[in-house]
């Protein structure tokens, strides 16, 4: 079953201040089966993030279609979906993880994960159990659970970020360079986590810097240069 299908997608940015219009990407097409995982590769500035942000509708694209197989709404074009539908999908079906943790101030790690579950309509009891399971699963030190994440290290923030996004068990997870600022050890942990999500049937689209990280994880890559899907490239050692 096709989970995500991007057709002739393009996005321009108009800056009124500079009186310019810049084409970020155009002519992007690919599709992804349920449970599949593709990495988007290309040099910096080639529009990798633009694709992810448009799928999540943080960007409002101008061209093409992005079809998503929603459990609630059936097959729908995310670019034409109503805002309230997008809000619902973000709460229940589509997750987004970047390297930045952008959350309510003075909210503890535990509360943040619980709130994601409460937002889906879980009971407070179930949210508490789910949040603890998720924090433990992502190896976040128990002493940190009831502290505010702005004091966390980069790796801890990221694992919390992934915990918040995945505790809802989204059908589609978008990973926007989540490992960019991590040391090797933390990267390995994140890699394990992603591997587990994939095994559980989550469909993933991700941007990563190093091919080594993607090896054995991604089913293929979308190359921004060639504008085509292809198999995992050989890692040069």
């Amino acid at each position, binding site marked *: 079953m096709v989970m995500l299908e991007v057709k002739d997608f393009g996005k321009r940015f108009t800056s*009124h*201040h500079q009186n310019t219009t810049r084409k970020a990407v155009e002519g992007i097409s690919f599709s992804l089966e349920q449970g599949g995982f593709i990495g988007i590769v290309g040099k910096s500035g080639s529009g990798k993030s633009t694709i992810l942000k448009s799928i999540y509708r943080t960007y409002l694209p101008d061209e093409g279609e992005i079809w998503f197989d929603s459990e609630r*709404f059936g097959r729908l074009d995310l670019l034409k979906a*109503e805002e309230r539908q997008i809000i*619902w999908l973000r709460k229940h079906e589509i997750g987004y993880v970047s390297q930045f943790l952008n959350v*309510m*101030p003075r909210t503890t790690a535990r509360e943040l994960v619980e709130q994601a579950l409460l937002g889906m309509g879980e009971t407070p009891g179930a949210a508490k159990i789910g949040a603890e399971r998720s924090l433990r699963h992502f190896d976040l030190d128990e002493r940190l659970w009831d502290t505010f994440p702005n004091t966390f290290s980069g790796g801890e923030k990221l694992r919390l970020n992934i915990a918040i996004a995945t505790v809802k068990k989204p059908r589609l997870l978008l990973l926007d360079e989540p490992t960019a600022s991590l040391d090797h050890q933390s990267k390995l942990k994140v890699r394990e986590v992603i591997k587990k999500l994939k095994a559980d049937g989550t469909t993933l689209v991700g941007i990563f810097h190093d091919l080594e990280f993607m090896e054995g994880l991604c089913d293929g890559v979308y190359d921004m240069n060639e504008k085509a899907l292809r198999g995992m490239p050989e890692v040069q050692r």
Partner: protein
Amino acid sequence: MQRFEERPLLEVENLTKQYGPGCDECGQPGRPGLIKNYCPSCGTVYACSDVSLDVFPGEILGIVGESGSGKSTLMQCLYFDQEVTAGTLTISDPELAGENLFGVSSQRKRYIRNHKYGMVYQNPVKGLRMDFSAISNIAEKQIAAGGRHVGNMQSAGERLLDVVSIPLFRMKEEPRNFSGGMQQRVQIAKALSNDPPILFLDEVTTGLDLSVQAAVIDLIKQIQRDLGISMIVVSHDLAVIRMLADRTLVMLNGRVIESGLTDQILEDPHHAYTQQLVYSLL
């Protein structure tokens, strides 16, 4: 594709508020020839022009714009502090369904205000009686909403003060003795005391220092989560809007110039003014 069977709780169509008589020139559709929101030939000011919006159950709608963009006038019109020049307001509530609430009697407007609305002003002086105690301020609204049992009102009032973290041993004190943040929290408790389905928040964090601001934002989020109240939050502070609102409208010169998902407004603004606003964000 399946439709979303959700219906808005509050709907506003083409709300217009003008100060002045209007003339042939500015009366035309689209109001050409205005300087910002001012008609040079007759001197009429259009504080709000054809504003339409909807708020869904449990949703926080953000409204941003600079001073003078019409956001406070919009709130005052919705709260019936001001008469609109034109437009319709409907609320999907069995008691109010199908009526244009801008057109009903002032008695009925008062009823809506007392039973369906809560309002938190930027300046606590507008929302509180500074020489009544905190708990009496809450009681005032409870009585307006039909409360008559003193014991019940008192216990409900104490519960609300507890929700907004005002220590109960200070509940009989007058709000003028309180700090700005505490006054704002008493105002929020008062606004919630009639269990309103709709809450209006007008620049509620403006003028508060950062930690107090965070506490008020936290409280608003908590109220949304626990009580499922729909809210309209007006602020010129994009950071506040980003933390609170799911969707956001941008106002300029009395008009809505852009609307969308809050993160989309902040990261991919389309209108020249919105871009300027976002680029000014610290």
